[in-house]
């Protein structure tokens, strides 16, 4: 069942423009000289129940704007968004009850109060029955290892602790869909792994559909069954994480550290890339490796030999570059 449908979604923002200095202030006062910037430009996708989707793209690609339209904060300029069959901004309250949202860089916890108090207040806001709330608090406290700081005021928590608190807080009302906007930003490896483990678990066991934006590549590798990559408001790639690897970086390379390499006289296997004395050869079939090494060592001195597996990082870089072009 599709829980999210996005169809030809467009969102424009007014950007204050005009000249510099005091003239600009005048323009702003008069509300003139505003230009339209298309932040989301004809995006379409469908997300099925239980999916775990990485929504990726460089800064300013339109990720957060899309999330805000899915959560009912922003109204689309054009196109259709449906979450669980409803248009979020028209049925804002109904939608709010069935989604959880974590804006990674902004907490929704009460700064001066213990974490536990925030959970209880949110329970009241979302009208969660007391027993269910207790059960969820207990469960998340165990899974996210929050027992040690449940009664500490939020302002005294470390970033990793606070983030765990925020993620738990967004799930107290058992939402069907969880939106996470950069939940692992700035976290140490322990906190990150704890959170990744937790997200995996609630996705699997509670069947929560998760949509996550991130710049953390291991989030993608460990969590995302599917990746939607956008840039400049457009979808560049939509498919499985493996599919992305195959399509954009499926290439494995034989990398040789050499000496006395001369481009002009080279008549060995075709070189895919060269970094100083390091030569990269594309591997199409493992059987080629031996003959390539042999051919190369006949011509130059080979000091070292490695086979580079495709890395998601390189793929992302490649995709970023694609967006630039």
């Amino acid at each position, binding site marked *: 069942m599709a829980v999210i449908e996005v169809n030809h979604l467009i969102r424009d923002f007014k950007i204050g423009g005009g000249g510099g200095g005091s003239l600009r202030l005048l323009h702003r006062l008069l509300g003139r000289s505003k230009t339209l910037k298309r932040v989301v430009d004809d995006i379409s996708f469908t997300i099925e129940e239980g999916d775990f989707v990485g929504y990726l793209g460089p800064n300013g690609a339109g990720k957060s704007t899309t999330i805000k339209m899915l959560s009912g904060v922003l109204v689309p300029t054009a196109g259709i968004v449906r979450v669980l069959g409803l248009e979020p901004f028209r049925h*804002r309250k109904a939608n*709010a009850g069935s989604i959880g949202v974590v804006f990674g860089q902004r907490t929704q916890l009460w700064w001066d*109060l213990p974490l536990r108090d925030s959970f209880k*207040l949110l329970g009241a806001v979302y*009208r969660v029955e007391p027993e269910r709330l207790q059960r969820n608090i207990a469960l998340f406290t165990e899974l996210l290892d929050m027992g040690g700081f449940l009664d500490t005021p939020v302002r005294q928590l470390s970033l990793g602790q606070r983030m765990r608190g925020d993620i738990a807080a967004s799930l107290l009302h058992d939402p069907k869909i969880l939106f996470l906007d950069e939940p692992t930003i700035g976290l140490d490896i322990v906190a990150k792994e704890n959170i990744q483990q937790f997200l995996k678990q609630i996705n699997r066991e509670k069947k929560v559909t998760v949509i996550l934006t991130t710049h953390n590549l291991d989030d993608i590798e460990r969590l995302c069954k599917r990746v939607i990559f956008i840039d400049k408001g457009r979808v560049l790639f939509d498919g499985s994480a493996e599919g992305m690897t195959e399509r954009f970086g499926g290439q494995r390379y034989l990398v040789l550290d050499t000496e006395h390499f001369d481009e002009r006289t080279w008549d060995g296997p075709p070189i895919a890339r060269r970094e100083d004395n390091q030569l990269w050869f594309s591997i199409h079939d493992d059987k080629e490796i031996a003959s390539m090494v042999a051919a190369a060592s006949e011509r130059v001195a080979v000091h070292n030999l490695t086979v580079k597996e495709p890395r998601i990082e390189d793929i992302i870089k490649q995709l970023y570059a694609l967006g630039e072009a």
Partner: protein
Amino acid sequence: MFAHMKIYLRLQAANLRARAMYPLNFTLILVSVAFFGMTNIILTWVLTQKVPIIAGWNLYQIVFVMSLWRFSHGFFITFSQQIWNLEYLVREGVMDRFLVRPLNPMFQFFAMRIQIYGFGDLLAGIGGLVYAAPHIGHWNVQKLLLLVVVVLSGAVIEWALMTLLGVSAFWTLQSGGLMGLLDTLLDQFSRFPLSVYGRPVQIVLSFVLPISFMAFYPSYIFMDGMEGPPFSSVLVYASPAVAAGLAWLAYYVWRKGLNAYQGAGS
């Protein structure tokens, strides 16, 4: 409605617990706000020692009007001073948070915190009222009930006017200046009855920025032996109507502002 009340009380209990984390701040500001309110009364007292009757008003009457305003103002500060933070909350994206929760955003916004410093104004207001009330006219249960209505209307009027200005933050991200302007006006023109000012000021403060309905006009209800107010004696009873009208307008404009913030139809 009942559910909202319950949530509101729980949120405010939490707020108080949070405030109590900074007890020194709390006490000092409370005392200084109450003291500030009192100084206005003392100033009036000093003035009336030299000039016993100002534009037909004596010390007790002036203190009564001034304190009536301050009492309403105290409720405004306590329950809706939050409006001052709107521009900041819009800029910081805190409004987004309210929009992803299943509650009315305006309710969430104002419930986010009560401003206990308003207690200082309430304290100064009630002090002045108690001091002046016995000297200005006869009191009975009816008048006391009317006083409650007047105080609440006054608070609603200030809330509505401030909200109308504050909401501009949804479009411009800046509303502090406008609100500061109104705040200065309120502070200046709540010190003396409207009668002491010239016609243009009276017109503006009655029909453009109707802050005179917070205390000046309704104060005639409680004062014996006064001549009628400027314009019409009907205005004496108009406060609740003015409050209702402005409240409706404020909510309407808030909705418009929130729509603009979300980008509906723009």
